[in-house]
């Protein structure tokens, strides 16, 4: 039963987020701040996991393709498609749910517990609009960008692993990359990235904003935010794949 209450409260939160900013400049400043927190703040981890995921896919694909009839450039095709379709959007967003999501939940939770949200309300500021909307908008801008960066780095990592281990030559890999390339896959990945970005920002914001109690509850809320975001990401990944592929 509690889940229905939560969903209702979540929708109400989203609805009350839309009000006229008290001051455009301050909202813009907050938006830019969140862009740098979410974008720049997560760039390092995204780069590292992307390169390794690409590298591992190359090696594992090669391991599974034992037939001499299959040309090595096929490895590049498979790596390209798995990275673009699944690894870059889904895996990166799951990691971001942990990195950016827990940050959003604990930042808001701390503001709630230390009465900073009350202080905003007392000043006559719509705290949901001022605190949550810039986070969601920044996520919608930055996370798809991070996903694109992850695609590039993932494929680059795959190529690097392939050439370094002698599985596939650079020329073969590059040839494979261009074979049977479907631009629609990139569009699909970006659709996923937008949906996941919304989940990663709004779900933790919900749990953080509605913390009750003290420091312990902030920790609980951010754990819960990450778990729920991850489940929602995987679920919507399935739904989107079923609908759009």
């Amino acid at each position, binding site marked *: 039963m509690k889940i229905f209450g939560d969903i209702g409260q979540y929708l109400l939160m989203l609805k009350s987020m839309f*009000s006229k900013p008290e001051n455009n400049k301050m909202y813009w400043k907050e938006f830019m701040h969140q862009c740098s927190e979410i974008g720049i703040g997560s760039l390092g981890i995204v780069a590292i996991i992307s390169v390794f995921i690409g590298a591992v896919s190359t090696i594992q694909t090669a391991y599974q393709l034992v037939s001499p009839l299959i040309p090595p450039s096929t490895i590049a095709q498979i790596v390209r498609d798995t990275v673009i379709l699944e690894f870059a959007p889904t895996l990166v967003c799951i990691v971001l749910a942990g990195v950016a999501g827990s940050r959003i939940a604990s930042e808001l939770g701390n*503001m709630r517990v230390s009465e900073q949200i*009350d202080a905003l309300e007392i000043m*006559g500021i719509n705290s949901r609009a001022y605190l949550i909307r810039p986070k969601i908008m920044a996520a919608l801008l930055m996370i798809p960008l991070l996903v694109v960066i992850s695609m590039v780095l993932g494929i680059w990592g795959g190529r690097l692993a392939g050439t370094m281990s002698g599985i596939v030559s650079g020329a073969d890999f590059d040839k494979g990359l261009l074979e049977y390339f479907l631009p629609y896959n990139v569009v699909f990945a970006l659709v996923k990235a937008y949906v996941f970005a919304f989940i990663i920002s709004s779900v933790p914001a919900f749990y953080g904003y509605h913390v009750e109690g003290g420091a312990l509850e902030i920790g609980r809320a951010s754990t819960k935010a990450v778990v729920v975001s991850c489940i929602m990401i995987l679920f919507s990944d399935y739904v989107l794949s079923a609908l759009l592929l």
Partner: protein
Amino acid sequence: MIEVKNIKKSFGDKIVINDVSATMKAGQCNLIIGASGSGKTVLMKCMVGLFAPDEGDVLYSGQPFTTLDREAKTLVRKEIGMLFQGSALFDSLTVEENVMFPLNMFTSLSHKQKLDRVNEVLNRVNLVDTNRKFPGELSGGMKKRVGIARAIVLNPKYLFCDEPNSGLDPQTSLVIDKLIKEITMEYNITTVVNTHDMNSVMEIGDYIMYMYKGHKEWEGSNKEIIFSKNQRLNDFIFASEFLRDAKDMRMLEERGKIPNDRNMDDMLK
């Protein structure tokens, strides 16, 4: 003027505020006193609308507040300044940015004008050379003072202070009390202060409401409070040795042992 009309508030089945009414006039300090847990903070939050009371209403200058919609509430709130019990400063902003925040949000002054105003209010709360510090680098008392500075920076019509001098040394405490009193009279603010500090009660209590377990047990002024015969109030205000001495003097005075033209200020020195 703020009128509190039959406010009731409970959390679960625990009644925290039970049918409290009061009239708090402009240009004076209205104190809510009571033991820890008696419901002072909850009452104050009901008054400003951070908690929705279960029953009753709060009138700001005659206008009912709790039933207003969000936008109308916002208009009233722009005239409210509030100091929270835990200061509630924005962690990510410096002292200067914290105090400037309401100015940035609601005024179109130039940066220079805003900075002047910020320094003016910081000076008033005796804070110098802290502009660039973050709240995490301040002592509890300094945070309180920044909180007050932020609450008064927009010249509010109603000022709420939740324990403005808990955690302050007696001297700073006095400075804060005097400051609150001064601005209250100077700008004809309706000031509401939660406290359990007896010094403040005697110093600035133009109107005092004593809360006991969620209801109003007594009301009056600082002229009347130590002469009250209310047992619970007596237990509360004469909890300290020093004040018990004062109470003994009162008894002596009543029995005519000391001349009763002796004024209360001398007695409390």
